[in-house]
């Protein structure tokens, strides 16, 4: 299945991309997605081991199961205001 990973602010600068389609096995979790990306090597391995994420625009834990077509945003520590 394919999910869309989104990167903002410092993470986008780090990776040089805003969005990426990632293929994962059925039953994959957020944690699996993070591991798959970090496993690609530089610069992806510079992402935190446990980054904050939002799945379909709601904050989520790494144990959350992903579905095909999910939008998974990698959220650097927030600094609004």
């Amino acid at each position: 299945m394919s999910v869309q990973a989104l990167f903002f602010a410092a993470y986008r600068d780090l990776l040089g991309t805003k969005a990426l389609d990632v293929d994962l096995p059925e039953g994959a979790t957020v944690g699996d997605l993070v591991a798959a990306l970090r496993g690609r090597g530089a610069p992806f391995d510079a992402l935190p081991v446990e980054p904050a994420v939002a799945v379909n625009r709601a904050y989520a834990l790494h144990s959350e199961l992903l579905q095909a077509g999910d939008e998974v945003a990698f959220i650097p520590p927030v600094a609004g205001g």
Partner: protein
Amino acid sequence: MIHAAIVHDPIRNQDVLAHVGADEDGATVLFLGTVRDHADGRPVTGMTYEAYEEMATPVLHEIASEAGQRVGSDRVAVVHRVGDLAIGDVSVAIAVSSPHRADAYDASRYVIEEIKKRLPVWKKEHYADGAQEWVEGTVPPGAGAASLTPKDAR
């Protein structure tokens, strides 16, 4: 009414205030967050704000609704600007009205503190020496490592 928006153009105070106020209200609080000219003693010349807009808009609305519920008022308006801002520009405006001042102050404070905790917005400082850096932020609650869940924290 509850009003929440992420905007790209300069924020006008009157537009934000127009969303609050009622005959029963004796207090209106307007909070403005502005870009300051220094950070940790380092001269700052401007700030670039970025948002995950598709998520930030509903989160901002949720924060404003919670603030209103705390004090029993539905007159809460919050607008956050993104893009390139200059020193003195308003980055966030929060207007609350309620029958009595304590509730308006309380709700206003709640909105800005929750923005800092969980609104998916980031800012990059531009320094006088030409350098730029993303401002150190806060990890939102409920996002990230499973090891942070109460079950595993025991």
